[in-house]
């Protein structure tokens, strides 16, 4: 028998089928229902905004990787996710140049500066939005009514609650027939995509559970104490970007703790910050800041939630 050339490497000799592009594309698939809902509600605005954000995200990634003489990984899906998620948390009528600028910053400042995929501290899409929020606050708080292509400014449900003490119906909130960021209005569409991610075990259920659970618990307590001053828990759950944030932003792997206990801490922390911001701060919405703040302390959480090694003595 002829001697063949055999490959020699260390164990294990088989690998699971799941790799990074597969995970990324699963997230993109999960975002499709949200994209469809956003096109349904905001028509051409949605298509344009998503296209601009995705193209800018990929372009920026490409430029930075060329400048840093790294492998070009534009098609691993992570840039597409950042672009798409950022589009979903922008007001539908945001001028396209502003969206493009925000996406550039999201990728450049939120991701590439830290060393690219896997090294960033903050969720890039949220960082992009935070940048736009600080740069063009007026544009970022100009909302459009669903189904209209004209810019008819209308306050978001959360702003209406905060500044005018009026509430939108639960049903509108669930279906998404309210003004708000492109992809955050329809809880239904987000839940469809999120359940796909949870079934495929792409995201850890602990973060959304901790996040939403804390929000429900705290808002129930406040609502019970003062039903007039605070919204009911279901309303809190459905209004604003909470559901989108809890399923697509907070569980972002790169920027969240690695241990199960840590992820509980992360989710609960997000919930606490959100309720504090929504109830007592000058801002109507707090999803973005709650997640960014918890991102910032993720290394700390990791440090304090090291698991006890099997059989380790106390």
């Amino acid at each position, binding site marked *: *028998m002829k*001697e*063949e050339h*055999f*490959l*020699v*490497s*260390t*164990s*294990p*000799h*088989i*690998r*699971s089928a*799941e*790799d*990074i592009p*597969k*995970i990324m594309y699963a997230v993109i698939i999960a975002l499709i229902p949200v994209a469809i809902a956003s096109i349904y509600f905001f028509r051409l605005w949605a298509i344009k905004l998503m296209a601009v954000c995705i193209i800018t995200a990929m372009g920026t990634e490409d430029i930075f990787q060329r400048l840093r003489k790294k492998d070009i*990984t534009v098609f*691993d899906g992570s840039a597409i996710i950042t672009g798409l998620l950022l589009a979903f948390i922008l007001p539908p009528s945001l001028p396209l140049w502003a969206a493009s600028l925000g996406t550039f910053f999201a990728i450049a400042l939120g991701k590439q500066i830290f*060393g*690219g*995929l*896997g*090294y960033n501290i903050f969720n890039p899409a949220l960082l992009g939005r935070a940048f736009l929020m600080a740069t063009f606050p007026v544009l970022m708080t100009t909302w459009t009514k669903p189904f209209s292509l004209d810019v008819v400014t209308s306050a978001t449900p959360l702003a209406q609650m905060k500044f005018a003490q009026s509430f939108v119906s639960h049903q509108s909130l669930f279906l998404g027939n309210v003004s708000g960021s492109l992809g955050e209005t329809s809880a239904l569409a987000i839940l469809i995509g999120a359940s796909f991610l949870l079934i495929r075990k792409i995201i*850890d259920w602990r973060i959304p559970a901790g996040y939403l659970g804390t929000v429900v618990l705290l808002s129930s307590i406040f609502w019970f104490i003062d039903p007039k001053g605070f919204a009911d828990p279901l309303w809190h759950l459905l209004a604003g970007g909470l559901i989108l944030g809890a399923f697509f932003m907070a569980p972002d*792997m*790169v*920027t*969240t*703790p*690695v*241990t*199960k206990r840590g992820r509980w801490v992360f989710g609960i922390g997000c919930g606490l910050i959100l309720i504090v911001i929504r109830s007592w701060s000058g801002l109507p919405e707090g999803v973005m800041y709650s997640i960014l703040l918890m991102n910032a302390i993720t290394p700390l959480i990791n440090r304090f939630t*090291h*698991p*006890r*090694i*099997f*059989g*380790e*003595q106390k």
Partner: protein
Amino acid sequence: MRIRSFRGGVHPPEEKITSQKPIQELPLPKKVVIPLSQHTGVPARPTVKVGDRVKTGQRIGEAQGPISSNIHTSISGKITSIENHPHPLGPPSLAITIESDGRDEHHPSVKHNNDYFKLHPNEIREIVRGAGIVGLGGAAFPTHVKLSPPEDRWIDTVILNGCECEPYLTCDHRLMIEKTYEIIEGLKIIAKTLEVTSCYVGIEKNKEDAIKAMREEIRNKANMEIVSLKTKYPQGSEKQLIEAILNRKVPSGGLPLDVGVVVQNVGTALAISEAVKKGRPLIERVITVTGRGIKNPANLRVRMGTLFKDMIDYCGGFAGKPGKIIMGGALMGFAQHTLDVPVIKGTTGILLLTEDEVNIEEPQPCIKCARCVDSCPIYLLPLYLGIYGEKELWRKCEELGALDCTECGCCAYICPARIPLVQLIKLAKQEIAAYRKKK
């Protein structure tokens, strides 16, 4: 009843393609190469010289020191050389080559003992030691050492390990079906030697027929239990097995002894029974030749020292272009660069992967998905061991418990970024050992 298991682990595809294939006897090989180091511990010292005629079962290597094992010839014939030969676990090492005379004459020391049940534990230990029996699950730790716990240790339980959690491998599975009686006999001998009262056999749920056969065999035996375990890798790892069956945790850096348990592989139990009853030293074992790279996968009973190529020829040769030859399982086995390596006591199987099953993927940056953390049965943080390992921060690795790693490979299997975590951790363990020694 709840299915018992442990925390962590992975679910690789089972691929037990040979599970329904009865064990076949491999024809007597023309030549065997018997390495003097087939076990954990010090290599044996050769007791024969080139040109000697030997008979099957004759001792040709003598154990050196407490943790070592005797070596016996597996065929009868003439010794043609004692020199370095490729070894499946590492660099070439000293091995005895024997040309067969085709007669398979047994050495006079191999004889039945009809009064075996009257033996004193120490006599049994002596037989096991003399027969050169080591753990057949892969680690090849000398069995007589395990059967001789220190005086101050209280052992109350024996667990037979029939999990065979590695994908592809089916040799233990077949043994449990075909040699049920002998295995239980072996278990009784072990229990008697250790003077323990409770015995368990842990078998993964995917081997229903084996569980049934074993349950049948132990009917009316009060102190034995067959435990059906969740099919999950690494269910057959000692620490995880003990956790699953007894809910006891072996302390970090400790042994099963520390929680009063001795774990033996089912194959080892069979070998003990053979040695005690029939006086047969450990000269043959059952291995699984499997994978998509082989024409006719099979479970084979082979003599120690049989070369891989003989077995592959017997199984019809390669199917397609072979990519990787692995001794052992897909997750913990050792890749071979040549087919000129012999079967040793710890060989559980030969796995042939085709070229297209073997694709080396460039490691990508860690995205901190923490799948490795969730799958680690020892609760380490493999991703940080990898990160610090790459930066050669060995002391950080030590702080994170690198030495506790059992190298089960769950983390590297599951890693979507294809980071060679096991390799990095192995390296870290070596470096830590090196600087500890220096101190």
